């Protein structure tokens, strides 16, 4: 396997039982003298809703961008399991902040990935209609983004990623810019859509609540350089009701456990930042 690039592994070379959807080994990413991601190794199972939490600047976004093919790793390997002969893209990303094109309508935005893959127009229309329906955007199909609220725009971004039907979905703090109520609604909607076909998801967040509410497993990362600190399995049953969950004792325990682990790292991240400030 070549170093740095994302490799698409044909299915028949590995036995079915031991085949993770994503296999990362000794992944390193440096920018000049700064190490953003340091020797991260992990396996993500097919259909797993995998969460990554870490203090800001811990390299979690970098890790996701390498998975998305937007950055190349300095060393190490990433393999995404793709069944032989699959026409689906290996990943689609929901970006942090506004990423839908202002010059396209909701419908055009949602169908962008399919259009780039030269899928026939009729199929695009059917698939897009389905996901616009699931995200409650049918009425706004011909609106331009500037006519929509921030929450609705992020729904379009989610519809665009799901409609592209990738093997894995990458989400980079997709709800961080939204207010608390909208965030809650979108989290619920995301779980609903995800329940349909249980795609493998890698979801980055700085919110411990969100990690527990959505994930099957949470990876805590250390402050810079970003290393793997701990995995926390989330054993909560699905389908989940976010409102009910927040009152459950297991939920509180999990949040507490992750937060305890994360707390030291946030503290360290702050010290690193203070030192940089002091040097100036």
């Amino acid at each position, binding site marked *: 396997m070549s170093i740095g690039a994302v490799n698409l592994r044909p299915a028949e070379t590995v036995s079915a039982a031991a085949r993770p959807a994503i296999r990362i080994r000794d992944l390193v990413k440096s920018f000049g003298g700064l190490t953003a991601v340091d020797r991260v190794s992990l396996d993500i199972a097919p259909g797993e809703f995998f969460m990554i939490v870490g203090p800001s600047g811990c390299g979690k976004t970098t890790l996701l961008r390498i998975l998305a093919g937007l950055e190349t790793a300095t060393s190490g390997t990433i393999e995404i399991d793709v069944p032989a002969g699959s026409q689906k893209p290996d990943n689609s990303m929901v970006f942090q902040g506004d990423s839908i094109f202002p010059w396209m309508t909701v419908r055009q935005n949602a169908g962008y990935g399919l259009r*780039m893959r030269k899928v026939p127009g009729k199929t695009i229309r059917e698939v897009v209609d389905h996901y616009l329906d699931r995200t409650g955007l049918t009425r706004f199909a011909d609106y331009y983004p500037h006519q929509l609220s921030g929450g609705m725009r992020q729904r379009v971004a989610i519809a665009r990623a799901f409609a592209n039907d990738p093997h894995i979905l990458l989400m980079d703090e997709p709800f961080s810019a939204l207010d608390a109520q909208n965030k809650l609604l979108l989290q619920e909607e995301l779980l609903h859509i995800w329940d349909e076909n249980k795609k493998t998801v890698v979801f980055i967040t700085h919110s411990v609540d969100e990690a527990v509410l959505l994930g099957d497993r949470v990876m805590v990362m250390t402050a810079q350089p970003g290393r793997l600190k701990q995995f926390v399995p989330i054993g909560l049953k699905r389908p989940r009701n976010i409102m009910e969950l927040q009152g459950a004792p297991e939920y509180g325990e999990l949040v507490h456990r992750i937060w305890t682990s994360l707390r030291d790292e946030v503290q360290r991240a702050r010290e690193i930042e203070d030192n940089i400030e002091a040097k100036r």
Partner: protein
Amino acid sequence: MSVGTTAAAPPRQERVMSLRVRDRILSIASPIGLLLVWEIAARTGLIDTRFFPAPSSVLALLIEMLKSGELLVHTAASLRRLAWGILIGGAPALVLGIVMGLNRTIRALVDPIMAATYPIPKSSILPLALLVFGLGESSKIFMVAIGVFFPVAINATTGVLEINKIYLDVGRNYKADRWSMFWTIALPGALPVIMTGFKLGIGIGLILIAIAEMIGAKSGLGFLIWSAWETFAVEQMYVGLFMIALIGFVLTVVLNELERYIIPWKAS
């Protein structure tokens, strides 16, 4: 905002539409208002009609010149030169500007030349243009072209460079090829800024065509104004000025409408 007022407020779409209608009515009403004040001032002797004749007397001459066909000849001559100048200056500027935005090397090569030539007042090139292109049509068209060229080229470069990087990431993540990157991201992303460049450039082109036609021309609104000065035909001078103002006004309206049509995503 409380829930009650949200339900009572008109839908966003409608509110935007009615504001647009209002803006359009205002943009027509303000120049008419100015003309009215002028007419009253001229008739009451508040201003010297030898220099500032009443709009009504200018209008009378304008109608007369329209009937004789004289005015149309001059207006058409100016418009024709303007159109060719916009095309000849704008098209290469658009291509060069976008290429400069996309390609660092070309930008590094061309930028200093642009920076050095851009500050030269375009009107000061007229003698050179006359020298090179002679007294005929080409010197006038060249002047318009040079006026349109700079704002369009500079804005096209800026427009491409200012496209939010996240859109390029989306294009790459969703596997857009080079062609799609240009047509679905770079061009529409830069279009609002390019459009502003064209508006600026056409405004400058109008100034330059009036100046260019004052020297060594046999037709055009600039010529009409200049010959009015030579014969002290003040009202004829105002007819020329009015026509140039009218062209400027109509072009602004047309360009704004065009912008609404080709950039429907731009919030108004």
